[in-house]
């Protein structure tokens, strides 16, 4: 499976992003890592160019919400992205936040999997479960 990943916005926190690439590779995905400081259009462009099945966005510095509000509108401009698995994780609010409330919000923005302050590997386990479930449907 092909995954596009990166850190959204003006965020330069790169550590989780590097670990993400390592973990995805270790789990056998074909990874296209756009790195930090990546804007939303760049993510969707890369998904289209590579024919990726999964878009996996990180955000650490609290910027995510600002960007996520534009996801649906932007995604609808691209064709054939209906099957794309959309996932986001990291620190999805400024300061502390209620995890359930955050998950609900981001699902509304169009994400299938929301991992607020969830460990990388736990998140990737969820992704695999999600893919399994989809296959059997």
């Amino acid at each position, binding site marked *: 499976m092909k995954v596009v990943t990166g850190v959204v916005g*003006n965020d*330069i926190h*790169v*550590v989780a992003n590097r*670990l993400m690439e390592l973990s995805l590779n270790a789990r056998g995905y074909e990874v296209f890592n756009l*790195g930090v400081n990546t804007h939303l259009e760049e993510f969707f462009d890369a998904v289209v160019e590579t024919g990726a099945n999964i878009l996996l966005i990180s955000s650490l510095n609290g910027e995510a919400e600002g960007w996520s509000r534009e996801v649906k509108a932007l995604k609808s401009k691209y064709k054939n992205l209906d099957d794309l698995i959309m996932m986001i994780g990291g620190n999805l609010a400024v*300061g502390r936040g209620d995890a359930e409330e955050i998950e609900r919000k981001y699902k509304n923005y169009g994400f299938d999997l929301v991992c607020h302050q969830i460990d990388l590997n736990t998140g990737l386990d969820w992704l695999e479960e999600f893919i399994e479930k989809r296959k059997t449907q």
Partner: protein
Amino acid sequence: MSLLQEEREIILSNEYVDNFDFDEVEEFVRNASKDLFISHHFAKADKMLVQPRGGFPTYKQQFDLYEFFVESNVDVLPLTIDSNTRLNDYGTAKKMLRLSEENEIDMLNGYPLVNHGYRTTRKMITNFNKPVSLRHGTPDARLLIETAIASGIFEIEGGPITYLLPYSKNFPLDKAFLYWKYVERVCANYSELNEPINRESFGPLTATLVPPSITIVIQLLEMLLALEEGVKSFSVSFSQQGSMNQDIVTGAVIKKLARFYAEEIGCGDAAIHLVYHQWMGAFPMNKDFAEQLINMSTVIASMVGADKIITKTREEATGIPTPQANAKTVADTQYTLRILNGLPNIVDEEEEEILTLEVKAIMEAVFNDPADTLWRKVFNSIKNGVIDVPFSPHIINHNNMITIRDANKNIRIIDRGNVPIPDRCFEYERAQCDLSKDTKGIVNDIIHDIGIMQ
């Protein structure tokens, strides 16, 4: 009119800058209270200076923050700049400042110094009459530094390498070197009027598994680039690394070599200081634990013999700290410094020798670069991976050096990439580690090593 002065005029002809009265600023600096100069405090203090972090959008908020700090017995006040100003986007900063002033909500993550202007800001700085340190992260900081000094801020953090490799993905490095050359010269010129303006490098870099040899090399190079331009007071710095012994060794070697290289270029008259940052990597979510970590950092800073410590707060892992949490750290740190006594004298000759050899080998490779000026040599050395910063997000950085922690949590180099670590040192470093694991095992170790304080 000198070339520098011409450049100054251009920079300052900016719609967001009030008429800049150079003569008045010169007079102000010439007569400014010695207490505003951290260089003066370094010279007379017999204790480690304590400096928190912090910046808020409005004048009033910043003023209140300073009041909190002064109450908790701060030695050095911080002025952290917002990220729009850092990217020279004064227009957005202006808009957000207005919104922050009109509403109860902060629309900026720091103090927009250029928009507030030096006339206003100087009132606050002189009111508290404490040294202020400028924390920014700006590649083109020319206007910002002119405004800072005119405001009475006589310590400037940063540098062309340390404010770029950890903070940017693709800002052109050569431009950064030239903009910072300007900053050094302005600092050097003002230093002639009163006590010297202090420049400080940002040693923590990415705060993630950076080996001491790389940290020290970058500290020394930014120091040399500043001294070359006439800066007379400079602070090298590094942050807690995870092993008490490695920190003590790093402190000993950086002090020794900073003196050595300063003298090599005929700048032995400059005052060199050592700054220690409390743990800069991933913090524990548990705030009580965060406080333990912070206290331990203070103890280690004392063992290292730092001249200044820069603090974190119990809220680091969750979000921007409240003024209260920030002030608490200052009071706690001052208390700890006060009661910590009878520091042992610690020397680890073998580790010091290995580290010294590594630093000298990299420095030599940089000096041997065929370019004509030091900044071009450094630029080339970063470009060709002779200097390689683990976990830098910048595209110019090689990212080929691989480091892990040994059993004592020392950061060790297990893959040199293109960095000229001498064979003897490289073998020593690898010999400390368990390398029997496969790649997956090593990756798991790295993940674990990043989270050691959690």
